[in-house]
């Protein structure tokens, strides 16, 4: 049996072309589709109907965790587990703990942001039909692609091909799963 169909991949040569093609695919009602671009094309999220990223939620949780970790760590170490008497100063004060808590806020935010980016993107994913195609070299270099997946409920090979042709695709080919 031949490999099953993953979807259709269509090449566009310029940023304005992919922008308008994305608008047309979005308006045709497809849900499981994507654009492959060598750089983030300004405004393509809107043209594709991609919602605002959820990465900031991860960052916020990371930042709050970092700040609380810093403050509670210093309280535990210098005021609870082994109180240090230095210059008659209080065992704990949020003022002297602030610089370290501030740095840990940033440290945890950075880790949470990157973790959030990988989780939301389902990366690392070293196998993908798009990576298998020979188009990927140009897709990261200077060409722009629209991929419509066969699992989309609206997918119909002939109609998807017609839509992409009408949108101005330079070349359309089938992707194996």
């Amino acid at each position, binding site marked *: 049996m031949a490999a099953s169909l993953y979807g259709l991949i269509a090449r566009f040569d310029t940023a304005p072309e992919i922008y308008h093609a994305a608008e047309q695919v979005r308006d045709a009602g497809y849900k499981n589709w994507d*654009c492959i671009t060598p750089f983030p094309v300004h405004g393509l999220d809107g*043209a*594709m109907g991609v919602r605002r*990223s959820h990465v900031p939620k991860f960052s916020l949780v990371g930042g709050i965790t970092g700040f609380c970790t810093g403050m509670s760590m210093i309280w535990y170490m210098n005021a609870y587990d082994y109180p*240090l008497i230095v210059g008659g100063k209080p065992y704990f004060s949020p003022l002297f703990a602030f610089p370290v808590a501030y740095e840990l806020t*940033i440290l945890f935010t950075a880790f949470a942001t990157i973790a959030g980016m990988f989780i939301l993107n389902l990366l690392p994913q070293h196998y993908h039909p798009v990576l298998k195609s020979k188009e990927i070299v140009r897709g*990261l270099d200077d060409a722009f692609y629209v991929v419509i997946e066969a699992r989309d409920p609206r997918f119909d090979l002939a109609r998807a091909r017609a839509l992409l042709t009408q949108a101005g695709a330079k070349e359309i080919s089938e992707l194996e799963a």
Partner: protein
Amino acid sequence: MAHAHSDHPAPAILAEVNPAPLPRATLVENHRSLNWVTEKICGIIEAPTPKWWWIAFAVSGFLALFTVAGIAYLVSTGVGVWGHANPVNWAWDIVNFVFWIGIGHAGTLISAILCLLRQKWRTSINRAAEAMTIFAVVCAGIFPVFHVGRVWFAVLPGYLFPFPNSNAIWPQFRSPLEWDVFAVSTYGTVSVLFWYVGLIPDLAILRDRFYRSGNKVKSFFYGLFAMGWRGSNRHWSNYEMAYLILAGVSTPLVLSVHTIVSFDFAVSLLPGWHTTIFPPYFVAGAIFSGFGMVLTLMLPLRAIFRLEDLITQYHIDCMCKIVLATGTIVGYAYGMEFFIAWYGSNPYEGFAFINRAFGHYAWAYWIMIACNVITPQFFWFKKVRQNIAFVWILSIFVNVGMWFERFVIIVTSLARDFLPSSWGYYSPSAVEIFTFFGTFGVFGVLFLLFIRFLPIMPMAEIKAVMPQADPHGGHDKH
């Protein structure tokens, strides 16, 4: 005439408002294509290793051995091999630490602060500048870790990181030195993360190019770190948000790091250190020295790899102007320190500054003034900024001057403290000198490995600021 306007409404000065078309600076010269950028940057890695690279690598490696030998001798013998003695118990070790950590600041400024300010010219220099940051932090870290002598206590249970030692005593968090441990280690970690996130799309390009050219081993390793990046716009959406947030947290981070480094001095009670101007003054100085180093590194790279279309005269102008601005801030801070020493009427403070300029270390002070205050003023002139060789020489002076700034601050204040009976004169030992100059070898080795194996410019980011990237056709170009 005076009442003429009451009869008729005053005519508008202009019939209609036509905003003057301000030409946008061209960031990539000669109308290059997207593919040209990929070929140019990947070509550096794919080409056979040039002969100059091996020579430079051998020289840097040899120089780095001085640091290795100096540290081995220090650890096996004791901190007495350095020239420290009462009252100067901090000297080259902390001077070199602050020098290197300051250099790192330009990389973060370019990658984070200029990103938030939408300075698009940052794109072609940010990758190499971030690499410079990371390697500078590595060189900086050597000194505080090894200046404790018994280095095993610094890292594992002990002085710096909060692990309980044998007496179950934790570090003392009221000390700025402990804040510094967290500031610098956070700075190093976040710089690596930021750099790595920027590298992901470019590593994916190299993965696919090496796969196509049949080099499966290289393709595997680049692919491993590319995380299966495939240029999906749904990924770019999260990626750009993550990049923006990283820029947003790196900005307060970079400002805090040198602020906390300055607290190491400012929170003490020593005349010449105990001043409130230190945090902004140190941050400006750090950016000043960092841009000096960026120019020192990027101008030769530009010439060797023929990158004139990507690092244009406009980029060099921008960097020179930042050196000028921050250098002038530093000059202002020097003046203001003197003013406050007089205005504050504290005899110890006043003595500390008179002694700096006219005491035993006056030679170091005037080298500092010449390099940091006078050198950048040349960048007012366009002719100077266009003379690449001269800009490069001036950038070396900036590096030298900023090293002397830290030397002047640290050593002159300590050598003449409150008790004249304990006054001394510090000079470095051969071990210190070798250890410091060796760190340039360490830096060189790391930087050469970087330009050999990683893309020295972020291809995706450069493409995104080219006219072809405009999804609305770019009405002003073509």
